[in-house]
Every structure is written in structure tokens, then in C-alpha cells.
């Protein structure tokens, strides 16, 4: 199933020397193979791409390492991940971009670093986009924080436009969300917690869409979570402004009420929103407004999460549950075709970052393949996660749809036992 090539049929795929050598109807490939993978009854898709993960290196290896994070990615069917720069120190120099990409880090899937858009991600002085791009950065972002200053954001988009480099915005008006720990609404009131408003996200998206139009820059909205913020994205797409967006599995699965009685594994930023917002997100995932499903995999150590709700850091893990949630919620729950889900994991994110030769199984593309069983029922057990951290809201959740094998550059990096 390769939505980018409009293929949805039984086919043989021949991988050779790290690339797709042939894709042809059964038994019609010309070249021979040393090794065969019988995927009858399974879906063979282009390798999944996650636009938004926190691998926590450099500096926070007690939460995750590039090795453990990419192992979790492989188990979740992801052959490529884009890692965020809000590490310690912030990845705002070509040296750190290089460091992440070194083989010593032990990555088992492709790692595409996003670099900081401003020095130390402080939102004031732009980094050197050209040198960061040369070092291997595929995007710039201050993720974890928004780029709030309008002039800085405009300059970032303008500089990005010259290099065809996307600017990823964490859309949150942090001036009004200080000391807010969840979505504003009945649940936040019941729990006595200050809430982040919908407007705090939507207004930033609205402004940035206008700036993208003005500058011709490529804008990508990370983890969009509200119905209101979808409006400017839709407007932009109609006007052919270069705006893309991603949605996380937790936002299309859960709502703010699920925070229950201060479960810190349901605390993330942006927060879980209302049922109304979730419905709007489900519609946008189906109708093509959304470009990609991205996990915002954000591991934290147990002791960091086992504290008062207000003190706990934002973030949940998500690499290993993304496909199961997408099939369970979107395909089975809301009748989205499997091809649309595969597109959201492959062609969509590849387009966002302009990753040539990825997100497709077309001849000549990279031999990154995800093989999954869309009917397999299983229960996620956080204790068996490949991630170093266990902060998931989905522990013990029954899911349908499981990764069977993950192939990166022609090598099997994960295989379901």
C-alpha cells in the first residue's frame, strides 16, 4: 500500500542496496532475492515517518537516548524520526546537529534533526539556518516554546523560504498560559487547575499563517490541538499558502476529562482538549486538512512524573502506540480508509519535510518499509516498552493493528516475535 504511488494491491517489493529496486505484481519481479519476507495477509507500506519526537540527547539521557528512542520508533513502525532541539544544551549549532547524526549514537532508524530557530531557543536571535541545514537539519523550531515575537517569526520564515527550510511552530501564546497545566474548561475548574485557552493556540496559528503568506516561507504547525486553530490552516491551504500541520495520537484519542484525578501521564502540551476539539480533529484528519500524524513522543523518568500534577513535566511517550491508536480510533472507530492512515504516516510527513525518496515505495526510493497487521488485536504493556520511559496514558489499552516488521535501508530493525 503506497498512497504516494496510488498503489493498493498485492505486490512484490524487491529491495536491493538500500533502495527499492522493483515493485511489481506477485511473481513478476525480474531480479532475484537472497532473503524473502512473506507478508501475505499483511500491509506493506513505505517506512513511517514521525515528524515530532524528543530523543532527549544531548543532556537528558536519563529520560531517553537516541539509541532507546529509535528502538521504540522501530517497534512502532517508524523508519525515520525528526527529533526536536529542546535538549540540554539546545541544538542550535551545526556541531550539535552533527553530533546527533553520528553513528556512535546508536540510532536504529533514520534520525533527521530539527535545529533551534533561535539561539538557545530564547526566541530573540535567529540561528544560522544555512549552516544548520548543511549540517543536516531538516527544519528549524523552538519546540517546547513558541516563537512569539512577530518580527522574529517573520524573519525566520523569510530566512527559511530562501533555503526551502520549514519553520515548525509550537503554537502557544506563552504570555497567557503561564501556570496553566491543562485545557481550560469544566475539568480544569473541577480540578482547581488553571487552564490553557483555545485562543492561546489559535491566535498564534492565525498570525503565523499570515506571516507565511507574506514571506512565502514554509510553516509547519506542530501538534495542532483545537478546532479553532484548524480554521486558519484550512484558509491557508485554500489560498495555497505553504502551511502544513500534524496531529498527535493522544489528541485524536483522548479529551481533557481523561485527566481524571490528576494523572500526570495525561499531562502534555498542548493539553488534551474538549470533546468538541477532538471531533474537529477527527474530521480534519479524514478530509485532508492534516498532513501527518506525529507522536510528540516526550519521555520523562518515573520520578519526574510521580509528583504533584502542577510540578510534573509536560509530555507522554507515543512511538509504540501510534499505529494501533490510528487504526483503532480512525479506521475502526471513524471509518477512515487504511490508505489515508498510511498516507498520514508516510507521504504526508515526507512532504512536510521534503524528504526525497522517503514516504513512498516507488522504484529508486529508500528501502524503508513498514509491515503491519491491521487486524491484529493486542494490548500495550508499558513495562515492555523499548523507550527508557514509561509515561504513557495508554498502558493496558487494547488496540487493533500492530507492526510486524520494520525495515530501514533494506535491513530488518524490528520484527514481531
Amino acid at each position, binding site marked *: 500500500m503506497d498512497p504516494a504511488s496510488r498503489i493498493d494491491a498485492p505486490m512484490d517489493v524487491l529491495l536491493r542496496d538500500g533502495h527499492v529496486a522493483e515493485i511489481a505484481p506477485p511473481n513478476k519481479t525480474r531480479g532475484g532475492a537472497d532473503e524473502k519476507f512473506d507478508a501475505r495477509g499483511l500491509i506493506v507500506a513505505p517506512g513511517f515517518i514521525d515528524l515530532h519526537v524528543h530523543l532527549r540527547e544531548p543532556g537528558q539521557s536519563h529520560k531517553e537516548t537516541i539509541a532507546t528512542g529509535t528502538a521504540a520508533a522501530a517497534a512502532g513502525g517508524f523508519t525515520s524520526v525528526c527529533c526536536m532541539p529542546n535538549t540540554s544544551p539546545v541544538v542550535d549549532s551545526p556541531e550539535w546537529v552533527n553530533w546527533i547524526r553520528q553513528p556512535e549514537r546508536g540510532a536504529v532508524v533514520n534520525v533527521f534533526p530539527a535545529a533551534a530557530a533561535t539561539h538557545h531557543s530564547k526566541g530573540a536571535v535567529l540561528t544560522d539556518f544555512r549552516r544548520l541545514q548543511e549540517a543536516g537539519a531538516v527544519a528549524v523550531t523552538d519546540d517546547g516554546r513558541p516563537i512569539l515575537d512577530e518580527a522574529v517569526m517573520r524573519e525566520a520564515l523569510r530566512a527559511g523560504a530562501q533555503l526551502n527550510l520549514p519553520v515548525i511552530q509550537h503554537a502557544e501564546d506563552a504570555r497567557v498560559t503561564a501556570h496553566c497545566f491543562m485545557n481550560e474548561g469544566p475539568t480544569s475548574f*473541577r480540578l482547581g487547575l488553571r487552564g490553557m485557552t483555545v485562543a492561546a493556540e489559535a491566535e498564534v496559528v492565525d498570525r503565523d499563517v499570515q506571516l507565511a503568506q507574506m514571506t512565502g516561507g514554509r510553516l509547519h504547525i506542530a501538534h495542532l490541538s483545537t478546532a479553532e486553530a484548524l480554521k486558519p490552516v484550512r484558509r491557508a491551504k485554500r489560498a495555497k499558502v505553504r502551511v502544513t500541520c500534524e496531529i498527535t495520537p493522544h489528541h485524536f484519542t483522548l479529551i481533557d476529562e481523561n485527566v481524571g484525578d490528576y494523572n500526570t501521564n495525561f499531562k502534555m502540551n498542548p493539553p488534551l482538549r474538549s470533546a468538541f476539539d477532538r471531533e474537529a480533529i477527527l474530521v480534519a484528519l479524514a478530509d485532508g486538512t492534516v498532513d501527518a500524524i506525529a507522536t510528540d513522543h516526550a519521555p520523562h523518568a518515573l520520578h519526574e512524573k510521580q*509528583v504533584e500534577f502542577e510540578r510534573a513535566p509536560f509530555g507522554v511517550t507515543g512511538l509504540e502506540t501510534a499505529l494501533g491508536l490510528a487504526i483503532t480510533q480512525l479506521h475502526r472507530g471513524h471509518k477512515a480508509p487504511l490508505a489515508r492512515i498510511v498516507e498520514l504516516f508516510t507521504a504526508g510527513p515526507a512532504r512536510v519535510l521534503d524528504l526525497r525518496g522517503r514516504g513512498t515505495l516507488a522504484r529508486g526510493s529508500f528501502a524503508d518499509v513498514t509491515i503491519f497487521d491491521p487486524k491484529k488485536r493486542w494490548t500495550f504493556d508499558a513495562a515492555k516498552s523499548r523507550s527508557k520511559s514509561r509515561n504513557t496514558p495508554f498502558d493496558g489499552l487494547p488496540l487493533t493493528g500492530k507492526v510486524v516488521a520494520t525495515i530501514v535501508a533494506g535491513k530488518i530493525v524490528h520484527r514481531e516475535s
Partner: protein
Amino acid sequence: MTKAARGSLLSIEHLEAAEILGLLKLARRMNPAKPRALLKGKRVVLLFYEPSTRTRSSFEVAAKSMGAMTVLIQSSGSSIEKGESLLDTGYTLRAVGADAIVLRHPNAGAPQHPSQALLDAYTILRHKRAFRGLQVAIVGDIYHSRVARSACHLLSKFGARVTLCGPPDFVPEVAATLAPGIRLTRHLEEAVRGTDVIMLLRVQKERLAGRKIKLDDYIGRYQMTTARLKLARRDAIVMHPGPVIRGLELTGDVADCPQSVIVQEVANGVPVRMAILARAMGKAK
């Protein structure tokens, strides 16, 4: 978050109506003047991350009058200052031999004040026959009030009609979603007219920073005065969880008037907390 231990009292919301009535009944049999050594040999730790006069002293008196030993831990002067987590503090106190912990904490798990709601319910039932159909006006800073949240849950469970009153920053529209049977008004006169119970809340001056409320405006519109009190039923009672700030949310005259049960509330805190502690330690007989 893991499940609370048996006997825990963390919120009113999760209590069954029958459990609440059971606690109130038990409280009526508790008499601090006639000590019963129900908790002989038990250790009760009072773990207070925030200042308190009433809650702390009445829990202490309650525990001691049942023969328990109490230890007070406050955040200043303890390892909390050195960065010990809440969880580790709990492990430490358990290791020391605590049988129960009375906790006041500004963060999560603390938007409620269940013992206050219970003693308020106890106080109301000393003056009113039943909750059903009772009109209760709660006036003031509902947004920041643990007492109001717990009171709303309790009163709603028993079919009282609750009116929340205050400016939008104190009483946001969303407050009506807290429990069934709650309505809002911005006008004190409307809230008070014909009501059976008036519950006033302290204006938390420390939390006004950055908000749009001016103290003078608040006093002008929402202060409980003798004239406004006349709008309520003649047998209406005036409640306040304390500390009261005379001249702000109420006048001194109202605080001291015959309808005021503010001091009774404090006194009732002791038997109610005796019941809470007895239940917590499985001695609710």
C-alpha cells in the same frame, strides 16, 4: 496516580451520599469533652504545606481527644525545604510509623476541602431539617476556593439548590458545570433573596494580583451587610469557613449577628474531624 488507601478522604466528589450521612451521624456521637480512647496508640501526622489555624488545631484536638499521638510537619523547617518530594515525604512518615496523614497542600489533589464541607454540612443540619430543597447562596471567590468546590459537591448530592455569586473572575460561567443544580448570578441581592443559608468566602487578596477586580468595587457589590442580610429568610444562617476579614466580604455586624454560625462551624470541626479520623483508621464504631 495510584489508588488511595482505604479510609482516605480526599474529596467529597467521590463519596457516596450514604458515606457522608454515616460520617455526620458518627460525628454526632463524638464529644471532645468526653474523650473515648478509640485511637489509643495511633500516630497521626499533620503535614501542612500551607498555613492553617482552624484545620490544623481542630484535627490535632480531635486526634488527641481520641488518644492518638500527633506530630506536626510544616514545609518550613522540614526536609521539604531541601527538595524532598511529596511521595518521599509520605514514605518517610510511613516509616516513622504514621497511621494517618492529615495533609494540606497547595498543589494537585487539593482543590477540595472535604473536612470543611463535612463540618459545614454538620452545622447546617444543626439548624435546618434537611438539605433537600434548601436554598444556599455561596458568595465570593469560588474560583480559588477549595471550600466552595467541596460544598457544591456535597450540597448537590443531597438536592440543595446552590447559587454561586460573584464577579466573573471569581465565578466563571464554567463553575455551574461543577455539579447538578448549581446556578450563577452576578447580583448579590438575587443570590440572597429568600435563601436559607449564606456561605461567604474570604477574598484571597494574595490572589488578586493581575486580576481585574478592585477591592472597593467588590465591597460595594458583594459585601454582606445587615441590610442585604434582611433579604434572606428570617431564619437564614450566615456561614464562613474563616479566616474572616471584617470590613471586606462581610461587616463586623454580620459576623457577630445572631444568625451568624461562624464560630459554631469552628467548634463543630472537632467532632467532625474525630469522625473522619476514626473512619480513616477503621474505628468508626
